[in-house]
């Protein structure tokens, strides 16, 4: 696929450090001095580590390999364009109010890294901790979210239960007296919020490129060569690339890559969709998730209402949504947010999410010695990107998981040791 016609970077020219002084300097020379944010190299024949998938998780894996372990002989291969998969297709919600301890650890690690990510990467990822509410609209949800709030407080993740009146105060556009699904309260995480999804991918890509890593776009892996239970190289449409270690970080296509390497994963790929409205004046400064009605809502900096919908139930690799889910999502949301009923919807899209049975991710060694997988983030991977990359880098560098990744191994399925997040992660994110 030929997507981008990008100019070759001048050799050695770096994007430099972004700062107010850089802006002033460039303003005075009519912005002629900005370099490319990341290089566009030809692939070498061999790397120490090859990461497949230049989405947020793959790039974060590469970044922390370099930053935390000094491994910079790394290629990140991407079949399309950088951040063009689920990283560019989500609703950008960031939170860490999960139920189980292993989830709280990795998602809260991610949230803490997000809090300083712009400074760390020297790239504005527009992290906006505007607060996040998960609405309780049934008695069962009240019990469930109160339980989550207690669990979170034991885990050191600050969340609290708030009553309907406070929900209304935080989000005046909400109708808390809906006849079918009244708002009965909410689980509130003040540290939650959103970030600019593309900027997360771009920021990590720029930092990786500055460390000398190769980000190779339009490079599709077509086969994996193994010998004696170890991977030797990957075949791509741009030649064979040998590696000492291979990290598969390809979300919805994890099963396809695993098949090439000769094993299966407990993953099924389905379509999850979202839509955005036309931009309107600021009217909502928190993120709202309504799991009972399968809808979630935030307002982007551009003023669009960003609306997340439901998943299809069947295996699907087409990045499209289904009309009936749009209808269901919008029908539910306009009951809770009546003012949305006059909005036109601008765009609608789908992404292919990799679902595990317990709705928790897989960060694991595999039956092939030097292949590692990071997948199964399902409907909620964006929020986890920094923590996922941090834990995956540790796994790849050491060949064994650290404390964050250890509970998420593939062996949990054989052992029946599930990390059940079907309530926290069911559909809404």
């Amino acid at each position: 696929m030929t997507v981008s016609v990008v100019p070759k970077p001048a050799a050695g020219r770096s994007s430099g450090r972004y700062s107010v002084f850089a802006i002033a300097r460039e303003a005075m020379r009519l912005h002629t001095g900005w370099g490319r944010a990341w290089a566009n190299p030809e692939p070498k024949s061999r790397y120490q580590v090859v990461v497949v998938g230049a989405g947020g998780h793959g790039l974060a894996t590469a970044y922390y390999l370099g930053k935390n372990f000094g491994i910079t002989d790394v290629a990140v291969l991407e079949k399309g364009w950088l951040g063009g998969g689920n990283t560019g297709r989500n609703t950008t919600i960031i939170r860490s109010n999960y139920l189980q301890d292993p989830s709280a650890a990795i998602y809260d690690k991610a949230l803490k890294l997000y809090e300083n990510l712009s400074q760390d990467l020297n790239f504005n990822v527009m992290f906006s901790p505007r607060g996040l509410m998960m609405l309780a609209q049934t008695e069962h949800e009240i019990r469930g979210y109160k339980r989550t709030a207690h669990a979170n407080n034991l885990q050191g993740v600050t969340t609290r239960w708030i009553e309907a009146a406070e929900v209304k105060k935080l989000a005046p556009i909400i109708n808390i007296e809906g006849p079918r699904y009244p708002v009965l309260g909410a689980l509130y995480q003040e540290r939650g919020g959103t970030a600019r999804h593309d900027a997360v991918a771009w920021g990590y890509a720029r930092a990786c490129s500055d460390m000398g890593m190769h980000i190779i776009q339009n490079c599709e892996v077509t086969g994996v060569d193994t010998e004696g239970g170890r991977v030797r190289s990957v075949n791509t449409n741009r030649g064979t690339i040998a590696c000492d270690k291979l990290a598969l970080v390809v979300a919805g296509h994890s099963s396809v890559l695993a098949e090439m390497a000769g094993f299966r994963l407990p993953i099924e790929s389905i379509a999850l969709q979202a839509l955005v409205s036309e931009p309107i004046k600021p009217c909502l400064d928190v993120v709202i998730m309504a799991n009972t009605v399968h809808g979630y809502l935030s307002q982007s900096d551009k003023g669009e209402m960003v609306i997340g919908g439901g998943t299809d139930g069947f295996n699907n690799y087409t990045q499209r949504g289904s009309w009936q889910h749009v209808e269901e999502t919008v029908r539910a949301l306009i009951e809770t947010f009546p003012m949305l009923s006059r909005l036109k919807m601008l765009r609608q899209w789908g992404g292919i999410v990799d679902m595990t049975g317990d709705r928790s991710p897989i960060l694991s060694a595999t039956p092939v010695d030097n292949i590692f997988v990071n997948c199964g983030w399902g409907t909620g991977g964006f929020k986890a990107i920094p923590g996922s990359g941090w834990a995956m880098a540790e796994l790849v560098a050491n060949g064994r998981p650290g404390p964050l990744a250890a509970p998420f191994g593939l062996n949990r399925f054989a052992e029946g040791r599930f990390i059940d997040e079907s309530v926290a992660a069911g559909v809404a994110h």
Partner: protein
Amino acid sequence: MLTLTCPYCGITAEETELHPGGESHLKRHGPGSSDTDFEAYLFARKNPRGVHFERWRHVYGCGKWFLAARDTATLQVFGTYKAQSKFPPAEIVAAIQAARPGWQPDWDETGDSAPGITDDPAPNPTPMREIIA
């Protein structure tokens, strides 16, 4: 919208009238099987990007489970067939091969231990009409 024809009642139904049931022709492993086999039966799925055999239930119609062959990359439906089929029938294979030249079945109808195929197909259920009659 995805539409499938129920092989029992003959109705062509939209996906909202149906309920998906995941990969079909799984070989069932239960008590007495090895842990590896049991784990694979429970969790390891082909999840292919391409031809997929799967279970569906005509949940807002006749209520019966049936099987379908579909391409997960294009949503093309090659056909539907009855849930009692041990293997995808010849006409389904022909329909797939007409659309995907070079595609070959990965099961062995002669072997007892064909991978991914149940050895013990459910017996034909008594049709509901006869019970009522």
